[in-house]
């Protein structure tokens, strides 16, 4: 008898009894009914139980047979007893088994993988986040299961499955367009048992452009409104996390570090909004997979091509334009290419004069992202990705008009300053077994900074240039790396992540190169400083053990031992991590984390605001790898139905800091860079709070950070000598360590297609340096300097003056429209600092010609209107 042809009434009966609809995800032949039903029927009465004489495999194949009434009548009692025992044994063995539910989550419209999508089983409190390729893997018991799949920007889907064995299937999520019940900027990515981890902030990105912008959308700026993340210089993109410095953030683009993720000094990030799919900032509770930075890990996942058709989008913002195209290349291969470029130079080109009397100013920023994804089969996937971004600024002085004199004359002069990032990565994802997946990667990442001056000289009477002299200052860092990451699911309560990484850092802290090309003579090329790169190998292994103790407690323990070699000296250190979560009976999710991080590379910066006069340098025998121990506790709870409240307290202890010495200057960094540093320690502590409204026509959040962030010189050589004597060894605040920082982000869906958004920020002013005293230099001229009789300023310690209160209101009005030409368009109008608040960024001390003293505040940004237009095709 073909049991699959059982009367439909029994199916209906059965479904009604269980109360679960027939799963739409599974192939019918795979459907089995859960063991609870078997037990239920056993308890209800053996008279309904029958043995069909089916084999164990047949029972597994289709449990319908047990409830086939006609069949049961034909059975003898002995068979019933044997069958009953067999059924019980089978069900018990099946019940004890765990099955892997794995698959890929993709955009239903385009077929692109959705990284970071959440797959949650409420019943067993098991969840998983899709990786960069949209893959997930859950281990669940034999049961009827409801899986909730959600991702910001997509409609949440709940799917019911019955789990007979390991399952593999895909889930497609429909995009949501300004759904009034969904917060456009989404929200915490990490969810613990349905609650939030306040130490992690996530954006899944597409709707972020609805928020007010300064010239163009920038996700790093929006992150500065989150608790624990503070802004650097006004209008800049740099996020400063829990009192850390800029170089203590690990910026990862698809897992590859970027050493300077900024354009236009620090005013834009390199992350093109059309490319980024997900961005997650970890402030604590770090995975052992990541190391090398003290304060935070920012993971940026770029979008991959869709498998269905060629599509793309473009946008025009104030100052930049970008376009991206993606689509399939055959049945298994997708591609994505995106480019962004500033266009101010093109607009100003007619007004520049390269050849006559007059100057030329040119500035260009550009980004190029590309990736190709090859879905070889269900177990193998290869992604090749690349990124190139650069900033180039030059000021040129054209040739002088020919004159009567035959003497040599300056013909042209050009000053260049620029920096660039380059990334290439090959990533092979391989499912070794249902329990284990592997990810093998090899990448190159490089950052270069170049400043140069080129001068040409020739006879004044002709256009001829007799000699060209180019003086260049260079610094940079390159990484060549090979990594292997593994994820192993032991059972539904235990998971292990482990891996190894080998990185060769090639660092050039500073090199000066002088090239002289003289007409008819030998070219001269002299280099000074680090002519060769400084090679520093770094080898690390890591393991994270995730243990779900029970429905209320979860424990993660990890460690990352690392060997870093610099100047022939070996530094061995381990970064242990502890994460513990406890859900209280009142459903408050509480966490406790301890993280120890080491940082063997650091940035020597001319200041703390991220100017490109910077050089990466390794740990040395004098300056050991920097260390930070962070202890944090947090709590989060859903309140008043539509709100989520969360808070954290933290303490960070910094050791082995290498800070710029008080008398040092770093516009040029050469072999003596270590002489410009001084040892120090630091501490940062405070609390964070956020109240977030996730649903309704008006959504948004309120964030508050209370922070103390301080540093101190401990170098014995500096106990005297710089500044006023008594203050050199005192604690001083970090420049952007704002004591109070409050942000309110609000989004209102005013019309069906239009949205009005506000950001209001009020915070303590940043610190700056103000001289305490003025005095004159020695009057007599001596060797080594002739700067006699000049007035100089002295100050007691660094960052000794807090600027006035900072507050700013931004507004945006964004409208989505359909177009006859494009599939969709978005028009946004923004006002940055709409009340033109005077937010001071510095203090200027000057004396006018009449001898009167002027001491004024200065600021960067008044009200700045911006407009942008995005089209999709």
């Amino acid at each position: 008898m073909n049991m699959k042809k059982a009367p439909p009434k029994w199916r209906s009966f059965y479904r009604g009894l269980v109360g679960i609809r027939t799963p739409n995800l599974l192939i019918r032949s795979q459907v089995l009914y859960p063991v609870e039903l078997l037990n239920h029927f056993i308890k209800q009465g053996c008279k309904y139980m029958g043995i069909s004489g089916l084999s164990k495999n047949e029972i597994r194949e289709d449990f319908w047979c047990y409830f086939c009434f006609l069949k049961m009548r034909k059975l003898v009692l002995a068979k019933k007893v044997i069958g009953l025992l067999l059924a019980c044994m089978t069900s018990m063995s099946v019940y004890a088994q765990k099955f892997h539910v794995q698959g890929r989550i993709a955009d239903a419209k385009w077929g692109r993988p959705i990284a970071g999508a959440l797959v949650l089983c409420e019943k067993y409190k098991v969840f998983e986040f899709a990786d960069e390729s949209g893959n997930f893997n859950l281990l669940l018991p034999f049961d009827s299961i409801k899986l909730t799949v959600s991702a910001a920007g997509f409609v949440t889907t709940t799917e019911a499955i019955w789990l007979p064995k390991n399952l593999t299937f895909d889930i497609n999520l429909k995009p949501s367009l300004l759904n009034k019940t969904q917060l456009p900027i989404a929200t915490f990515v990490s969810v613990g048992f349905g609650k939030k981890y306040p130490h992690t902030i996530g954006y899944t990105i597409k709707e972020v452009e609805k928020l007010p912008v300064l010239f163009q959308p920038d996700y790093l700026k929006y992150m500065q409104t989150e608790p624990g993340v503070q802004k650097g210089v006004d209008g800049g993109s740099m996020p400063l996390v829990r009192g850390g410095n800029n170089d203590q953030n690990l910026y990862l683009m698809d897992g590859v570090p970027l050493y300077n993720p900024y354009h236009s000094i620090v005013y834009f990030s390199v992350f093109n909004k059309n490319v980024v799919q997900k961005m997650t900032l970890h402030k604590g509770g770090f995975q052992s997979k990541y190391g090398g930075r003290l304060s935070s890990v920012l993971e940026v996942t770029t979008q991959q091509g869709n498998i269905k058709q060629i599509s793309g989008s473009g946008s025009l913002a104030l100052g930049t334009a970008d376009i991206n195209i993606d689509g399939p290349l055959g049945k298994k291969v997708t591609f994505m290419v995106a480019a962004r470029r500033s266009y101010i130079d093109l607009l100003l080109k007619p007004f520049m004069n390269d050849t006559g009397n007059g100057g030329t100013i040119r500035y260009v920023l550009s980004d190029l992202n590309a990736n190709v994804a090859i879905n070889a089969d269900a177990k193998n996937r290869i992604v090749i990705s690349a990124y190139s971004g650069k900033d180039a600024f030059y000021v040129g002085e054209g040739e002088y008009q020919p004159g009567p004199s035959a003497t040599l004359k300056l013909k042209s002069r050009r000053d260049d300053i620029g920096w660039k990032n380059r990334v290439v990565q090959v990533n092979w994802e391989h499912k070794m077994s249902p329990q284990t997946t592997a990810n093998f990667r090899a990448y190159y990442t490089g950052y270069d900074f170049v400043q140069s001056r080129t001068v040409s000289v020739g006879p004044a009477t002709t256009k001829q240039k007799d000699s060209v002299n180019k003086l260049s200052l260079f610094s940079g860092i390159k990484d060549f790396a090979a990594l292997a990451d593994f994820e192993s699911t032991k059972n539904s309560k235990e998971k292990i992540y482990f891996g190894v990484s080998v990185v060769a850092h090639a660092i050039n802290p500073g090199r000066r190169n002088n090239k002289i090309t003289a007409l008819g003579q030998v070219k001269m090329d002299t280099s000074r400083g680090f002519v060769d790169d400084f090679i520093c190998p770094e080898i690390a292994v890591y393991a994270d053990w995730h243990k779900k103790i029970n429905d209320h407690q979860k424990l993660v323990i990890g460690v990352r031992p690392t060997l870093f070699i610099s100047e022939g000296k070996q530094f061995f250190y381990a970064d242990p991590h502890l994460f513990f979560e406890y859900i209280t009976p009142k459903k408050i999710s509480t966490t406790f984390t301890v993280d120890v991080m080491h940082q063997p590379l650091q940035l020597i910066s001319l200041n703390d605001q991220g100017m490109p006069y910077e050089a990466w340098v390794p740990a040395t025998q004098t300056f050991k790898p920097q260390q930070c121990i962070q202890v944090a506790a947090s709590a989060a709870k859903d309140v008043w139905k539509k709100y989520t409240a969360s808070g954290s307290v933290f303490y960070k202890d910094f050791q082995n800091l290498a800070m710029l010495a008080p008398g040092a200057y770093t516009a040029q960094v050469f072999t003596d860079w270590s002489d410009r540093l001084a040892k120090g320690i630091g501490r940062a502590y405070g609390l964070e709070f956020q109240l977030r409204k996730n649903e309704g026509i008006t959504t948004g959040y309120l964030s508050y950070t209370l922070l103390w962030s301080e540093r101190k010189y401990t170098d014995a050589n500096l106990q005297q000598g710089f500044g006023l004597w008594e203050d050199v060894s005192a604690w001083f605040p970090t420049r952007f360590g704002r004591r109070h920082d409050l942000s309110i982000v609000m989004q209102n869906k005013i019309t069906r297609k239009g949205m009005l958004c506000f950001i209001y920020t009020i915070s303590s002013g940043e610190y700056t340096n103000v001289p305490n005293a003025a005095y004159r230099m020695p009057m007599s001229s001596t060797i080594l300097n002739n700067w006699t009789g000049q007035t100089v300023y002295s100050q007691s310690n660094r960052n000794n003056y807090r600027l006035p209160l900072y507050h700013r209101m931004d507004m945006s009005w964004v409208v989505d429209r359909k177009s006859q030409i494009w599939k969709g368009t978005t028009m946004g109008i923004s006002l940055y600092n709409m009340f033109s608040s005077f937010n001071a960024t510095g203090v200027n001390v000057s004396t006018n010609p009449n001898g009167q003293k002027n001491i004024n505040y200065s600021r960067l940004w008044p009200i700045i209107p911006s407009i942008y237009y995005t089209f999709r095709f």
Partner: protein
Amino acid sequence: MKKYILPLLLSIVFISCQRGRKVKDLPAKPGYLVINSVINNREPMYVFVTTSSSPGDTTYLFDTTVAVSVYENGAFKATLPFDKSSGGYFYNVIPTGGTHYKIGVRKPGSKTDDSWTKTTLPKPVLLTNVSFVDSAIFQNGEWISEIKFRMTDGPDQDKYRLLFYGYQSGNYIPFVVTPIDHVLTNNSTERDLTAMVFSDNLLAGNSHEFIVRFPSGNIIKSGPPRFIIEMTNISKEYDEYVSSLGSYQRQARNPFSNPVSIYTNVYNGLGIFAGYTIKYDTIP
């Protein structure tokens, strides 16, 4: 017309950034004693004393009311008189290398020194085996001359300054040389037109032979070649002071830089008290 458009655009964007707002509560602490004295082994000592003022003030008067005392190797030597012509307190003694000096400054009415500073003048270096070879080699179409000498690094030394003078037309004039040995080529941190400043990192307290070369044609020979080698032994305090002063000068021209403090070794005050010792050797 075109050339006005760019400044106009920039002005529109940044016009309000120039708008200042008066600062009311600067943490100024005027009134520190400022002691400045740079000594060497060829001139008598002058000590200049002023008082610091608030930032932006431009009036600095020499303080003539304080009492300035000099100590040598811990022993009181003199209270210095004020010299109106120089504006400083004058000590009519030429400092000697290896001597420890201390200056104390006492305001009127004080029983002890309000500010003090100290330094040790470096001992002069000893140059030996000084030699000159005229037209020693022929290179790139011209004859090259060579000067060699040997020097022993002192135990507490850090920086040296080397300068060569050539005799021309009745005067000794500084001239440029090309260093050959690795100490000068790899360890020279600063160089002005003629002088080389190098650290003793590669000397490590040892004796070393220096070799420099220069085109023979650079020296106008009105008789036998005559040279002076000037080797200056710079104290650590003076080196710190000069390098921080250089940094201060550079940052003053850079609006993006954090401020740089100038090195001071004056307790409860500002300024510098340091020195250097000059040693000359002649050829022949």
